[in-house]
Structures are given as C-alpha cells and as structure tokens.
C-alpha cells in the first residue's frame, strides 16, 4: 500500500515532468539570484554560499509542500484515504517520501554544481551534499505536518511557510553550520550526527502527527 502511494505520486509527478524540473530550477534560480543582488566579490560569496544554498533548498522544498495534499483534497481522493482500510500514518509517510524523491533528491544532486559557482572547496562541497542528503527528508517530513494543518485553508501556501519555517530553522542552522565548520577546518561530525538525529526523530514522529492533523483538518 505504502508502495502504491509512492508509485502513484511518482506517476503523477512523471505525468507532469515539469514539476520536478521546476522545483529544481527554482532552487537554481534562487541561488543564482544572490550574486546579482549582492555583487560579485568572491570572498563574500564564498562565506555566503552554505547559507544561501541551504536557504534556497529550504524554500524550494517548502514551496512544493502545497502539492502534497491539496490536489488530493480538492478532488476528494483524500476523503477516500481517510476511509481507506490502511494505516493513515503509513499513507502519509508514503506521500512525504514521494515528495522527497521528487523535490529533495534533485536538489541534493544539483547542490555540488551550485557550490562550485560560489567557489567552495572540494570537501566543503562534499559536506554540503551530505548535509542536504540528511536534511531534505526532514524538510519533507516536517512539511507534511504543516501541509496537513493548512489543508483547504486558502492562502494556505503562505500560511504553511509561516508554520513550517520556524521548525525548519534548526535544520538550516546545523546544515549550513556543518559546511561552515568543515570550511573552517573543524570537523562537521557533530553537526552531521545532529542532522541524523533530526531525521530519525522526524521519521518516527512526523507521519503520526501529520496523520492526526489530516484527520483534524478533514473533520
């Protein structure tokens, strides 16, 4: 069933190939906008790089949250999920995972290229990619809660940012912190293990919370 949901969401994403691409391009564009706004000095850019890439990843992932449940809600599929004889947490987990596959993974793959644009050294690039790999699933999982809570509320797209961004902040701090620490020659180990802990915690808690929120929203 879990697999069915993932498969279905991926199928939908494939039917709209542009979806995957556009999240990615959004990420790329945001990262590339900053040098335009800030100016071309390499030193400043290099200091900014981890923060900018992480903020862009966060925004890109957040912006696609709306799609996680909204369309299922509008056409009545979500009702069917609630009365389906399957575990709702599992369904939600499937949807979050599909969301990550569609939005998170491309970002992770793209990040090194963007890092190079900002002249990051090699191992910082590695740490950047690794931190994104650990961090983006957390974003999708936490995002599922926000998306579930704002379901059917109009202006939900922006409301969800309001709810979810404060929760994303730790991920951002430790994600960008890991890269900075490694660039500064300190190990990134502590940051990375914290990110891992976040991932585990959100894997356990978020689907359950999001399922509860969904039930609340659909009452």
């Amino acid at each position: 069933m879990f697999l069915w949901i993932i498969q279905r969401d991926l199928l939908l994403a494939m039917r709209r190939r542009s979806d995957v691409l556009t999240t990615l391009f959004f990420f790329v564009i945001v990262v590339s906008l900053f040098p335009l706004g800030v100016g071309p000095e390499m030193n400043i850019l290099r200091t900014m790089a981890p923060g900018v890439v992480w903020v862009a990843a966060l925004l890109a992932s957040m912006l696609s949250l709306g799609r996680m449940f909204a369309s299922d809600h509008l056409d009545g599929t979500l009702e069917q999920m609630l009365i389906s004889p399957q575990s709702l947490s599992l369904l939600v987990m499937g949807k979050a995972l599909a969301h990550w596959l569609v939005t998170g993974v491309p970002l992770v793959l793209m990040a090194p290229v963007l890092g190079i644009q900002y002249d990051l050294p090699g191992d910082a690039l590695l740490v950047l990619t690794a931190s994104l790999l650990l961090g983006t699933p957390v974003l999708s999982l936490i995002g599922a809660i926000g998306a579930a809570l704002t379901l059917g509320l109009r202006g939900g797209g922006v409301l969800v940012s309001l709810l979810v961004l404060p929760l994303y902040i730790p991920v951002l701090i430790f994600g960008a912190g890991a890269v900075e620490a490694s660039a500064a020659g300190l190990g990134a180990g502590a940051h990375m293990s914290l990110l891992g802990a976040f991932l585990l915690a959100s894997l356990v808690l978020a689907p359950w919370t999001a399922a509860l929120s969904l039930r609340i929203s659909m009452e």
Partner: protein
Amino acid sequence: MAINWFKYSSPASFYFLAGKMIPLFSIAAIVLCAVGLYIGFFVAPTDFQQGEAYRIIFIHVPAAWMSMFLYVIMAMWAGIGLAFNTRLSSMIATAIAPTGAMFTFLALWTGALWGKPMWGTWWVWDARLTSELILLFLYIGFMSLQAAIDDPRRADKAGAMIALVGVVNIPIIYFSVKWWNTLHQGASVSITQSPKMATTMLTGMLIMSLACWMYAIAVVLIRTRAVILERERHTAWVGELQGAAR
C-alpha cells in the same frame, strides 16, 4: 477541602468564576506595577557601567520572561484540550496567544532600544535575540492558523498541534547558544549563585515581573470570557445572561 474541579472546568462556571477573579488580579497588577516602577526609577541607583539606560531592565526582563512562560503555558493548555477534549483549556490557550505575542514584541522592542546605546546597534543576530524573534513567529503562526479556520473545534485542535510541535523547537534554538558567539547577557539571576546586581535593582525587577504576571492573568481571563461567549452563544446560559442583562 474537596473542590469540585469538574464544576469549574465547564465554560459556564468558569465564566462566572473568572468574572470574580479579574478585579483581584487587576488591582494586584496595578499596585505591583506602581511599587515596581517606584523602586525602579526612584530607589534603584544609577548603574556604574550603563548609566541610566539600564532602567529599561525593569520592563525588558519581565517581558522576556513572560514571553517564554506564556508560550509554554499556552502549549500546555492546548495540549490538554487536544488530549482530553476539554473545550475550556483550548479556549484559554487561544486567549493566551495575543498576550504572549505582545510580551514577545515588547521584549524585542525594549531590547532593541537598549541595544542601541549599549552595543551601538539595534539588532545583532545572536542566539538569544534570534530565538526571541522565532518565538514571535511561533505565536503569529499559531494565531494565523486559528484565524484562518472557521470551525472553532478544528481551529482548537490544529492550533494545539502547531503549538506542541513548536515547543520542541524552543529548547533546540535555546541550546544553539553554543554555536554562536553571544553579545547578550547570560542569566544573572539564578538560585545557585549570589545575585550579581544591586539588591534594589533585583527587587524592582522581580516586582515588575510579578506585576506582569498579574496583568497577564487578568487580561487572559477577560479574553477567555470573551472567547467563551463567542463559542457558547447558542447555549441556554448565555441566553439567560442576556435575559438578565436586559
């Protein structure tokens, strides 16, 4: 003494109970505030380092403390409302949020006005200040979510979810102090260490904090009464209330 708690957990009886308690807390708030301000401005000596600017402390610290306490209390009531489906606790949580946000704003504002003469800048991005800002966002998120939902039952439950999830965030941000070089004063009031500041300053600050507590309780009670009326307007007892008011 056996108090029948269930009696007071019904919105109707709480409405009347709160009506009786509000004057007490209001008076306490006014008196304490007057005393606190008197000590703060007329008794406490000038600080040898900061000059008179430190007198902001009498509003800044109480506001900062209240902002944090109120969030935790709000989340607690919301959580109780979610778990036990008690309408009253959810209503109290709803009523706390604006006051909490107000204190958070005050802490930020007074801190900024203090920072300019002391640090030479309105704002720095250090852990304490940032976490306070995020706290404001959490409050606003809670309130906007509730405002966006028309059905009060759903609003209560959804608000509770976000308030509880937000609590998880607070300690995390709080401990990120380690990763930041901080300009802000650390805790100078603690039980284990002897107070670092003049006793008059400390008394003034504590009395002002108490005044803020009383004020917060009074305002929250008033707002809870309003929320109760809004939610219960179709019930018989509100109708009777109106009949009596005619």
